[in-house]
């Protein structure tokens, strides 16, 4: 557990180098591969995508989210292949005029993606880590 609080003079440095004209909120979600899956320690996850449908579906979801929530910008990135535990396999960035629609759209998008978009994952077993799970 870590907490850090900073008050600083003037603007904060850009975190992501991405935004949209008129945006008041830019939210970035990073999905990180966790070291434990279903109680087993794993080395990572192996993602398989159905190309190009996965990309088309992500684009359709982004377009629907943009219309429904009145967003100003969306970027989606998703890994295929092996992603080690602790690394990022999915990133969704949403820019909107205000915070509420960005957070609502983020929740909606991720739910829909997990339900619909043709991407599959399977664990990459941790061959050399047979120690107890902390």
């Amino acid at each position: 557990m870590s907490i850090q609080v900073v008050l600083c003079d003037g603007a904060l440095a850009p975190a992501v180098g991405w935004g949209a004209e008129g945006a008041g909120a830019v939210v970035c979600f990073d999905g990180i591969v966790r070291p434990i899956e279903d109680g087993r320690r794993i080395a990572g996850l192996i993602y398989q995508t159905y190309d190009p449908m996965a990309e088309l579906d992500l684009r359709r979801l982004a377009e629907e989210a943009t219309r429904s929530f009145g967003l100003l910008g969306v970027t989606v990135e998703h890994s295929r292949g092996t992603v080690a535990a602790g690394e990022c396999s999915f990133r969704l960035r949403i820019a909107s005029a205000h915070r509420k629609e960005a957070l609502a759209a983020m929740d909606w998008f991720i739910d829909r993606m997990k339900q619909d978009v043709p991407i599959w994952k399977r664990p990459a077993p941790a061959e050399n880590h047979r120690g107890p799970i902390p």
Partner: protein
Amino acid sequence: MIHQVLIFGPYAEAVGEGRVDVTLLDDQTVTARVVMESLREQQPALRLLLAHAILAVNCRRVGDETLVNAGDELAIVGLVSGG
């Protein structure tokens, strides 16, 4: 007519391959429903998993009555787990 169907994830693991063939009668009107029913009959290893399956034709999910033509790309896109 023999049609190839792309499979992924748990479907591919169940049959050990990334595609399966489905044989359809030549005088049949081939809809998504017919493809799925034929798959269930012809691929016993997939039968249980196909309860959660959705057919995609040319990268779009389709309804049961959508017609399938020779040359269409077919894929099973259920049981996804991205993110």
